[in-house]
């Protein structure tokens, strides 16, 4: 039985449980919102009803109703633009702005801020209420996430991201009254918490309270240092999102334009993390097959995602034997660049600067982990996000959408379709299965689309038959889903041989460093489709068939899983439980 109501005099019929806001959307009546955050594909519906910007008048109700969280009721008469509602909304916005710094010009979220957009939409040009503003110390303690609580508007979206979605549990409401703010318990700096730097809070934050730690300037400095050869790597998910920052439609594959832009910025070599993704598959699949053969330490868990790895180290340290010991593609790239490439190009490692462009904020933290440095030289020197790269391109005056398509440099720029799907949840496992299937079967199989592990669902399970060998695999994205799966494993309720885990819901395409989607999940769907489209268009779609990878092993590493490969390409994990 549908519910019938009227909004601004127009009748509308909605399913029971729908809110006034949803009913209004059906009529294409826009009610402004701020704290509300919905991502249907991840089953996220944050409606704390705390900002009160969406209040509307409901006939017969004594006070105004928050449209985002008031259920539609039979016979309800809603008016969204009465003077009373408009006055209330303006006063609420006025109040929010009275406790918000007005330094939009230099805010990291300038032009990406939903409060700014609201002020613009509502045309508020004069503030009535002035008074004390909250002041907190900026938290720049981590390598990844900057917190400027002066800007926090208590929408609590980050809290939902951190707790409900990710179950990391670092951010929550602290203090009360005017001093209420969202922060780690005891207002601890983020670096001292169990934060995994997934950056989903940054994606969720509508204002400039949460943003990335900005490394653009160190990149500019390196690019302008004549003593340095600056090498850049670009992660798979960056190419399908960066175009959005320049007005290209979501889902555009901008690999060529991005390569051209990077070259124009002055990078000496433009390489691809995809190359290292193929390398990761070589090492990880070798490990997978070994573990299946020996039946030990199963299931094998993927280890590409630093947010997920840190989550495991804090929350499930008893399982740290489970992840593959293979380093992430970013770190393999760094290690190979500073050894193999340095040798080949005849450049001393200390004169090489490796810059990563990542869809991720946790990668900034990963690159700084001490095990990824040798003799004080980091394998990866600087990590910037997709957003930061877009900013640099804009700062350099490069007309991105007008650029010619460029090609990656050789040899670390060559990659396969298996590598590009690393950017989506399920992609790493599919890439591994493509290689494992060939290796186990001993032939070049043609059926390589493992569609059972594709899509944005949080937990996916599949049974794969390779040459008579039945493999049970699972893929999950979002740490809340990871927690569920790991708990099942601990209770002995799950029997898998391999599991791919990504911290961000949907995988890297929805990383904390990607252009802001503001809850529009159609964008994510389009990025996903773009990755698989890109995979399909590649001449080589299996990692072990990448000629540069084959050459790397032949010239330098020996066999996958060799002692030397282990030295360079594998790592160990740390019990971080306090």
């Amino acid at each position, binding site marked *: 039985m549908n519910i019938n109501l009227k909004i601004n005099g127009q009748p509308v019929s909605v399913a029971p449980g729908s809110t006034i806001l949803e009913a209004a959307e059906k009529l294409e009546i826009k009610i402004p919102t701020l704290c509300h955050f919905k991502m249907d594909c991840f089953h996220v519906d944050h409606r704390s009803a705390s900002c*009160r910007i969406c209040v509307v008048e409901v006939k017969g109700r004594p006070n105004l109703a928050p449209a985002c969280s008031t259920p539609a009721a039979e016979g309800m008469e809603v008016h969204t633009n009465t003077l009373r509602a408009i006055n209330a909304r303006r006063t609420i916005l006025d109040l929010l702005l009275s406790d918000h710094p007005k330094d939009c010009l230099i805010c990291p979220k300038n032009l990406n801020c939903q409060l700014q957009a609201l002020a613009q939409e509502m045309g508020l040009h004069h503030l009535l209420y002035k008074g004390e503003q909250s002041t907190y110390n900026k938290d720049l303690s981590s390598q990844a996430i900057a917190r400027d609580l002066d800007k926090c508007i*208590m929408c609590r979206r980050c809290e939902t991201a951190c707790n409900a979605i990710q179950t990391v549990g670092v951010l929550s409401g602290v203090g009360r009254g*005017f001093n209420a703010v969202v922060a780690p318990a005891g207002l601890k700096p983020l670096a001292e918490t169990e934060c995994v730097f997934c950056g989903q809070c940054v994606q969720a934050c509508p204002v400039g309270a949460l943003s990335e730690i900005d490394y653009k300037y160190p990149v500019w400095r390196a690019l302008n240092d004549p003593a340095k050869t600056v090498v850049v790597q670009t992660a798979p998910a960056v190419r399908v999102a960066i175009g959005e920052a320049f007005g290209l439609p979501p889902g555009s594959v901008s690999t060529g334009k991005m390569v051209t832009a990077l070259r124009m910025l002055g990078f000496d070599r433009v390489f691809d993390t995809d190359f290292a993704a193929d390398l990761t598959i070589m090492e990880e699949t070798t490990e997978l097959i070994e573990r299946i053969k020996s039946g030990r330490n199963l299931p094998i868990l993927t280890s590409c995602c630093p947010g997920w790895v840190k989550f495991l180290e804090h929350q499930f340290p008893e399982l740290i034997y489970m992840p593959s010991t293979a380093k992430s593609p970013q770190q393999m790239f760094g290690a190979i660049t500073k050894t193999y490439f340095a040798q080949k190009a005849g450049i001393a490692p200390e004169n090489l600067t490796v810059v990563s462009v990542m869809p991720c904020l946790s990668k900034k933290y990963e690159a700084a982990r001490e095990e990824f440095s040798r003799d004080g030289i980091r394998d990866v020197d600087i990590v910037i996000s997709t957003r930061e790269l877009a900013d640099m391109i804009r700062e350099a005056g490069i007309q991105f959408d007008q650029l010619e398509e460029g090609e990656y440099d050789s040899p670390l720029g060559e990659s396969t379709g298996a590598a590009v799907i690393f950017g989506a949840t399920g992609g790493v496992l599919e890439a591994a299965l493509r290689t494992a299937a060939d290796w186990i079967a001993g032939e070049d199989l043609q059926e390589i689309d493992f569609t059972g592990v594709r899509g944005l669902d949080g937990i996916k399970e599949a049974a794969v038959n390779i040459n008579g060998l039945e493999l049970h695999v699972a893929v999950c994205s979002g740490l809340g889903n990871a927690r569920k799966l790991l708990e099942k494993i601990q209770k002995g309720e799950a029997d898998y041989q391999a599991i791919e885990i990504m911290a961000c819901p949907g995988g890297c395409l929805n990383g904390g460093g990607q252009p802001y989607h503001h809850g529009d999940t159609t964008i994510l769907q389009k990025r996903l489709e773009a990755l698989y489209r890109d995979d399909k268009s590649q001449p080589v779609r299996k990692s072990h068939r990448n000629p540069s990878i084959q050459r790397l092993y032949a010239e330098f590493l020996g066999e996958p899983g060799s002692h030397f490969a282990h030295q360079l390409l594998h790592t160990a994990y740390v019990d971080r439980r306090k």
Partner: protein
Amino acid sequence: MKITSPEELAQNAAALKSRPRKPIKLLVSMGTCGIAAGTAAVLKAIHQEIAERNLENAIEVSEVGCMGLCHAEPVIMLADEATGEKLIYGDVTPEQVPAILAAGTSSIAPGTRTLERNWYYPEFETAKPGEPQARIVLRNTGRLNPENIEEYLADDGYAALAKAVTQMTPQQVIDLITASGLRGRGGGGFPTGRKWQFAADQKSEEKFIICNADEGDPGAFMDRAVLEGDPHTVLEAMAIGGYAIGAHTGVIYIRAEYPLAVRRLEIAIRQAEELGLLGRNIFDSGFDFRIEIKYGAGAFVCGEETALIHSIEGKRGEPTVKPPFPAVEGLWKKPTVVNNVETYACVGAIVRKGAEWFRSLGTAGSPGTKVFALAGKVAKVGLVEVPMGTTLRDIVFGIGGGIKNGRAFKAVQTGGPSGGCITPANLDLPIDYEALKSIGSMMGSGGMIVMDEDDCMVNIAKFFLEFTLDESCGKCTPCRIGNRRMYEMLNEITEGRASLDVIDRLKTLSATIKDTALCGLGQTSPNPVLSTLANFEDEYLAHVKDSRCPAGVCAKLIRYEISDRCVGCGLCLHRCPVNCISGERKMRHRIDQSRCIKCGVCFQTCKFHAVEKH
């Protein structure tokens, strides 16, 4: 020993009643307030005197909860068991004890203060002509020893529960409560029967009954008095409620700042469990009910039922949007009834005496009685319980004895920080839920703060708003930021810095906060401002336009000057903490205004009324 049937309960009560008694029963007020005022020392002196004079067989000492006579603590009462004569002493000191015990009930000990009985301590549960008080909620408080279940049982305790679970269906219990017209005493006045009905109608294997004992209004202390003085009444009512809605677990959410109430509740729960009055298969009816205690950490907003539930669940104590209402989705997402202490304290009496009896007290829309914590500038501060519909005049000038020190009455604030002020114009209005609402205030939990001509109404509004400011959870924008801005505006006014449009801004902002805040705390937080503005706008204007505080309270707006009545005694000069008074002996002194901090010490010190406040 377990009591397993209503008959056994009645036999037990009869046996307890007919036990031989000592000639005099001596009640000692051992509520938190009494103890703070020194009752413990008096009690010690009483035991000492009894021991020294071998009065063990003559006097039965009973430690009871608050008698409601805060203005006279420490209070003791002597009751002659034979004649029923009662004698109440106030301001008792340990030194007076020998004389009081020597005088017994036959005469009044010299050098003591006795209190007129009929005003303060009427017969229980009945309103008699000439006695404005009628006690339902407080019927046992200050009368029975809360740590001894036998006193409660002797007084037909748990008979209501026995009747409910053995003679009535759950629906009959709900119908009875609905028919009684009992409304929530915690603030909103929602019909209790309807609340129970909603929860009863939900299909769920698990339901909860919660007692909201998170009393936090400034100046309200009736719930503490009931829990300290009569915990069993609340436990019994919770069990009745549990039976009515189909809950088997009750939770008392109580402020951790009420340690004595917590201790007495714990004792009471244990004693009731030992007798089988709580626990499994109560009165062999098949009904199980147990009660646990959860502590609040001192957040006013946790009195809001959704916030309270989140707090019990271990989450941040902040409200969420209703619906879903707790009756549908409450504690652990199960149907839950939340009632406050005073509401529960009415339930047992209604079950025993019927809806008609309850409706015979109070008004048609608000049956029964209401407890008020009478405080502020009233002569006799205390806890009073009156039938709904009693006028403010009867309470403040009748029971309360008028204004302290002969000053003029100005207003009464009811409903605490959520309420408003009532002016002399409404002194004769019969008070109930609707009446208070109609004049811009509310019942609230029953705090009643009396103000006199020396109170600045802007300052009073600021005081209440400051409380809300501290107690807001900070979740929604209007309460978190709006109240802060309101407070800042009031501050500007009291410091004479406000611009003329401040009144308009206050009114607009108040209206928005009322209209948009998420929970009851926020929605009602502008009430003190709106109500003082409505009734005392001229006082606001005096501050804003003339930089003058008519009541002489706002320090930034007053100045002290020494008139020619000064004899030059030098007392003020010596007392002034900042040495800003100068003058030769026997010559008129003067105050250096640039250094004066307006502490008022000179004003209070001067014996010749030479210091004037302007």
